[in-house]
């Protein structure tokens, strides 16, 4: 008897600031008008996706001392657009990335609890952190958070928010006009958190929300990030390209849950993935090649190379060979506000590796950048893509995927119309939502206290 088929979780990322979006396509619409978000969200809901996801960036990026102008730029406020989307959808989860560095727990907990009330239990929070002074220049707090404190602050931020979410137990409101008792409890919402990062106390003023707490997401491949997710998150966004890497990541992260008293199914592993569909595999491959060329122009490729070289490379020909000079040592100063820059921890080694690869495979700068920035991607006919997604999930390389279309807002339409029915026929994806809340979609139980679960991380 083979084991039962795993059910796939699917979500959609509304493309934010990035080079993924092919904004020059005639079918590309606004990145900011609400109509775009409505179209995108309604397609995701029609396809019975678990949730819609928004990323975040709190400062316009700069490169070479100027605002970076080659990518899509400009995005709405996360909470506000998600609250509005709650009015035009019924089931779709609404997930937002909110920074724990440039916010305060009381306000963020209030916003998420409010969003959960206003959406009937569909809120999710992707907890991220930042330490850079560049972004800090837009905030009262400034940029003084030492880099090494970022997970410490994120952990304590999440602990503190959890205490606020739990400050009401759900039974306080009586609202009995006859007796005149609005409250059963004379002092609801009491909390006190005394910690290194936050020392706050008082009364939370939002009553317990339908999910109790929003669903918690976490991104990050580092050891610290994995541990943080194992301790405190309901889902983790991974990033990897192969079955082997995916399985290794999956096994590693799921293996960490036991030490927090959690079972493997309490944390979903949902890597981001792009997709390109065609009537045939060959047609899809051809289209995918065109998409990549549009995403990575010659100018974009040079700028991307500068992230590693940390110096002005504007004199180089994108269709020519890689620079034979080495990256400038020290803190990267050429590109500001980009996470990808920090992923190259040893730029000299990366440059050597890229030069060797380009020489071996005969790749130009632009071709190399296209190759190295490729993400997990499903390319092919609807059947090929459905099989590819299902195979990775059944092989425990993931529990599902967060799909990132290259077109806004219509990029999900074909997937909803062609791939989803095939997954449903295979019996690996829902035909209807089981319940009203995002926790229902993800198969997650009612939340429990996070703070005790985090304790072993300190030991």
């Amino acid at each position, binding site marked *: 008897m083979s084991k039962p088929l795993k059910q796939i979780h699917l979500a959609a990322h509304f493309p934010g600031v990035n080079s993924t979006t092919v904004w020059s396509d005639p079918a590309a619409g606004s990145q900011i008008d609400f109509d775009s978000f409505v179209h995108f969200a309604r397609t995701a809901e029609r396809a019975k996706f678990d949730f819609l996801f928004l990323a975040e960036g709190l400062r316009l990026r700069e490169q070479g001392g100027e605002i970076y102008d080659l990518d899509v730029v400009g995005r709405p406020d996360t909470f506000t657009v998600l609250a509005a989307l*709650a009015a035009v959808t019924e089931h779709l989860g609404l997930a937002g990335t909110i920074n724990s560095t440039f916010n305060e727990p009381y306000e963020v907990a209030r916003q998420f609890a409010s969003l959960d009330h206003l959406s*009937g239990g569909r809120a999710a929070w992707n907890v991220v952190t930042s330490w850079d002074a560049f972004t800090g220049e837009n905030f009262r707090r400034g940029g003084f958070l030492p880099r090494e404190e970022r997970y410490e602050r994120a952990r304590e931020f999440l602990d503190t928010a959890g205490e606020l979410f739990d400050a009401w137990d759900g039974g306080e409101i009586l609202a009995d006009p006859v007796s005149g008792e609005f409250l059963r409890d004379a002092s609801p919402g009491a909390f006190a958190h005394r910690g290194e990062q936050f020392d706050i106390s008082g009364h939370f*003023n939002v009553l317990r929300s339908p999910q109790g707490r929003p669903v918690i997401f976490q991104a990050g491949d580092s050891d610290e990030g994995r541990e943080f997710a194992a301790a405190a998150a309901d889902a983790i966004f991974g990033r990897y390209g192969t079955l082997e890497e995916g399985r290794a990541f999956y096994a590693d992260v799921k293996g960490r849950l036991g030490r927090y008293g959690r079972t493997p199914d309490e944390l979903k592993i949902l890597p981001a993935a792009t997709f390109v569909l065609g009537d045939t595999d060959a047609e899809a491959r051809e289209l995918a090649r065109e998409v990549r060329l549009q995403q990575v122009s010659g100018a974009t490729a040079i700028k991307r190379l500068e992230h590693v070289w940390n110096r002005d490379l504007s004199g180089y020909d994108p269709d020519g060979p890689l620079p034979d000079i080495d990256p400038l040592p020290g803190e990267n100063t050429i590109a500001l506000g980009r996470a990808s820059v920090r992923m190259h921890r040893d730029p000299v080694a990366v440059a050597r590796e890229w030069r060797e690869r380009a020489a071996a495979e005969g790749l130009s700068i632009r071709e190399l950048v296209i190759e190295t920035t490729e993400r997990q991607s499903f390319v092919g006919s609807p059947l090929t893509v459905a099989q590819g997604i299902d195979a990775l999930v059944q092989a425990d390389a993931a529990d599902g995927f967060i799909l990132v279309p290259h077109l806004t807002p219509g990029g999900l339409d074909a997937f909803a119309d062609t791939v989803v029915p095939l997954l449903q026929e295979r019996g690996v994806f829902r035909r209807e939502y089981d319940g009203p809340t995002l926790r229902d979609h993800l198969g997650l139980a009612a939340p429990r206290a996070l703070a005790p679960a985090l304790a072993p991380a300190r030991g």
Partner: protein
Amino acid sequence: MPVHPSPSHSPGSAPGPALHLAVALDGAGWHPAAWREPGADADRLFTAGYWAALVAEAEAGLLDFVTFEDSLSLQSTDPAGPDGRTDLVRGRLDAVLVAARVAPLSRHIGLVPSVVATHTEPFHVSKALATLDYVSRGRAGLRIQISERPDEVGHFGRRTAPLDPAELYGEAADHVEVVRRLWDSWEDDAEIRDAATGRFVDRAKLHYIDFEGPRFSVKGPSITPRPPQGLPPVSALASDVAVYPFLARSADIGYVTARDAGEVRAAVAALPGTPHVFGELTVFLDEQPATAERRLQRLDAAHGAAYTSDARVFAGTAADLADLLLEWREAGLTGFRLRPGVLAHDLPAITRGLVPELQRRGAFRRSYEASSLRGLLGLARPASRYAAAPAAPAATASPAA
């Protein structure tokens, strides 16, 4: 144009500029016992449907806008902290999120959430209100307030009580200045999508705001493009003349709690540059004056104390209220923000009683005449402060020359 019935003979029916009307939404209404009234829906105060229904009623009455009250602490009769009472509405949802949640369900009415400047980030507030303007297609406004409450200080842990109100208003003025500069930090045509050069935006039309103040500095630009209205209207309440300098500096609409026409004239004279000065009134409306008075007494009895307010409390008929509003219009006000004593009763009394009364007197709109809040308020859409003046017709470099 349809011919309207001739105006009534009531005083104050002389032709004048149309009044602007806003309603302040808070809990079940402004009387502390409002939640106990029939139809108050007190067990639904924390649902989207409750707020959507109120906004729909206000929009059916052609009101200019609704405001949503907010605070970062439990409501209390004690300025220092929770009062331990169980007989009053306690708990709130975030006002900006409530406004955003109802925006797609309404079409014309302005949506004005309250924001506490004292504990929030102007960068976040700016993009949140810009986004509210996008999701409402140009109907967002901001009502800015400060908080001196020591319990709120404890909720954030960054300051030490007591706070000095004068300093807080100074900080709030800086907050509003930053919010507006960020709205202006993208010129309207910054997004160019120039496929030839690969540029999505023209960086010459994106601007650092470089704000430096005693409490915070903000670099900019915003991450959200300039909102549909350019600058959504900013409003603030002044229950005290000491707050007038803040209104004068920061508000497009100032709400003043004058008690009589003389105080109205003084307020208007003190705020010569403020585009709109609205009167703030709590209202209890019924068909007969005595009915309204008795209802107020019944509410007071349920509450165990007479209702008091910073604003004038009006209990009477829609016609009498219309007289008062038009008298105060003569004294210089351009509109009113009405606080319904009981939302379930007094909001419909405004939309179905007061509004037709004002229409009969030619003092209120009969249909929405504009699609944006600025438009409803008769405020032009401003250009970005950072936009270069339109270039003069090119006198040089003509290829044909």
